[in-house]
């Protein structure tokens, strides 16, 4: 199969094009903009038979997206960072409508201070919205995950919107070889969207998003969202098998890298997992028995798969590319929670915070993670949260503070 060189953003746009979406409401934001630019060109020249419309904000954009999906159209949209947060209440609202659209989020750290490079505080803030979340490591995985996302979202057992996440800059603007699935294959994988439970029409009026009085009715509907989200684990598995059969590429809810005989395991997500894999190789070359577990699906939380991958390990380090001030790493908490009932749980759990605002994680920092994690496993005592920050970075920061007049040199 031929591969084309393309950025993560273009791969995302191709995902929407191959899914033959009907409607693309858009709003620009760095580093996502290239996605909607590509789609506007394709909608304009007819290579994608969809309506493209620019809205006045991400809040309006997500509302239009949800409303169009509620009317029966297959909808794609994309945003990033501040845009995702600007649309925040709408995420919850349209998840409650049970509309199966796909939203690509190109991760970018949140203000303030305002910046452009990635971390995952944006996407993880939305983890309780009812959207499913798939986090991609490569440009290939972006396009493949979007196709899988539509199939999962539209499954009658799920009927929930899906967010596909990729890292700004590191993936959005990085060209990688991508082998685009054949449109005929996509047709076989993803049947046309013909929902029976959605659609406004004259002959069958219905009401969506009505008010409820009383907690019992509210609890019922919110719990339905939870159950549907949990169903997505099974539906993802089925989609994964079918995708592999048609395309030859396999994606599971978590991905293990050199886990077989690993004593210690490093947990990561998204594009920086590639750096992590490189660090695992380097550590292995030095004789350390380490491996990496990449979390691909964050919602629903693949607790069983994580438990299975981690049981019997000596120590586990979670490298969170996010920071919940006053708490620490977000994914560390979730990993720790799902290991509580595991009889063979690791002797130590370590929490590292790195890559905030796109900060590089150096080989030295990875080495330090492996060393400290091994030590924690031997001592049976977890550590963290520890912020990854090198001496050189600290010296540069002090220089900036001197320039800013905040410190006397």
């Amino acid at each position, binding site marked *: 199969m031929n591969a084309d060189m393309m950025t993560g953003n273009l791969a995302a746009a191709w995902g929407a094009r191959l899914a033959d979406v*009907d*409607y693309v*409401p858009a709003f620009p934001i760095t580093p996502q903009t290239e996605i909607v630019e590509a789609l506007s060109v394709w909608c304009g020249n007819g290579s994608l*038979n*969809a*309506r493209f*419309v620019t*809205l*006045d*904000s991400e*809040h*309006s*954009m997500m*509302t*239009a*997206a*949800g*409303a*169009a*999906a*509620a*009317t*029966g*159209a297959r*909808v794609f949209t994309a945003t990033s960072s501040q845009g995702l947060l600007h649309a925040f*209440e*709408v995420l919850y*609202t349209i998840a409650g409508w049970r509309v199966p659209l796909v939203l690509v989020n190109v991760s970018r750290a949140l203000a303030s201070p305002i910046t452009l490079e990635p971390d995952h505080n944006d996407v993880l803030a939305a983890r309780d919205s009812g959207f499913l979340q798939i986090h991609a490591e490569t440009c290939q995985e972006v396009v493949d995950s979007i196709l899988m996302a539509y199939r999962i979202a539209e499954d009658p057992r799920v009927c929930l919107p899906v967010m596909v996440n990729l890292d700004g800059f590191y993936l959005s603007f990085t060209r990688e070889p991508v082998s685009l699935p054949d449109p005929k294959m996509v047709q076989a994988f993803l049947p046309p969207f*013909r929902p029976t439970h959605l*659609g*406004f*029409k*004259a*002959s069958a*009026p*219905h*009401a*969506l*998003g*009505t*008010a*409820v*009085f009383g907690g019992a*009715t509210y609890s019922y509907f919110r719990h339905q969202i939870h159950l549907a989200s949990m169903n997505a684990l099974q539906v993802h598995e089925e989609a994964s098998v079918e995708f592999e059969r048609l395309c030859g590429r396999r994606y599971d809810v978590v991905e293990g890298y050199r886990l077989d005989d690993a004593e210690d395991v490093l947990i990561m997500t998204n594009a920086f997992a590639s750096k992590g894999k490189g660090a695992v190789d380097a550590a292995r070359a030095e004789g350390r028995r380490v491996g990496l577990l990449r979390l691909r699906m964050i919602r629903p939380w693949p607790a069983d798969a994580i438990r299975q991958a981690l049981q019997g390990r000596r120590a586990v380090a979670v490298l969170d590319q996010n920071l919940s001030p006053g708490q620490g790493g977000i994914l560390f908490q979730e990993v720790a929670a799902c290991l509580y009932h595991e009889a063979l749980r690791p002797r130590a759990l370590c929490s590292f915070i790195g890559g905030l605002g796109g900060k590089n994680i150096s080989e030295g920092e990875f080495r330090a993670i492996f060393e400290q994690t091994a030590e924690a496993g031997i001592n049976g005592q977890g550590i963290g949260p520890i912020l990854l920050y090198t001496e050189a970075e600290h010296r540069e920061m002090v220089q900036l503070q001197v320039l800013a007049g905040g410190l006397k040199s």
Partner: protein
Amino acid sequence: MTWQRETFKKIKQIPREEHVLPGTALCAGCGGLEALRLAAKVLGDDVVYVNAAGCFTMLAAYPFTPFKGSWLYTTMGSAPAGAQGVRDALDVLIAKGRLSKEEDLKVVVLGGDGSTYDMALSSTSGAITRKLDFYYFCYDNEAYGNTGMQLSPATPYGARTTTSPCSLQHPSGTTQEKKDIFEIWRAHKPPYIATVAPRYPLDLEEKFARASKFTGPKLFLALSACPTGWLYDPGETPEVAKLAVETGLWPLKEAINGVITHTYIPKRKPVEEYLKLQGRFRHLFEPTRQDEAIRHIQARVDDYWKQVNV
């Protein structure tokens, strides 16, 4: 030039069939609901109401709605964007042959003044700029009503709300002037804008009939006399709505492609007659009469009609 009604000349021409059925959770005497009931007689049942958070959100409370048409609750700040999504999707599905033309619906935004004048202004501006084919029905009760009457940009000078109370510092209560949303809409050049009042049913029905001939944004500002918030007996809604118009405070008008016509020229009773009916203006009359504030309100109305030049 006198404005002539063409479709609705006599009260008997108003269809008897109801499209907003009774038994909702809204307050007795709601002027906004009466205006909607009348509007729906022209809009019919092939409608999807796209609602913004506000009093009317209580219309559709699971498992009931008073409509024979459809309903979509969105958010407080983005109902026009919801209308955009529904309209676009209907167009796309019809164009692709997945929905027959007979299934098409009118898309009608229902928003209060808090949403319309404040939070959804960006979303509305976008929808008008994109020439979205939809109706916008604003029920304007001149305050954030569903939360218990707080100041909104639609609150007029001199009204007391729970966040602009009559105080030593501000004896008149509200000190701002009501935002002119009609002119904000008009600056966007939509094909049709009108103000309506529930006590003037023929005027209201005629305007909805006229609007139906236009493709694009059709905007209605409905005076929603509000017994709960304006503090008068629910039975007096018709009288309050009538005096709002007869004093000249609520001009009945339309703008077709930007050209304004006043559809009813009141003889203009003193504003006092309208103000005195409502508890929200009571502090202007007792314990001490605030002549200056009352004169101010009268002067604003006089200025408006002087500029109208009829």
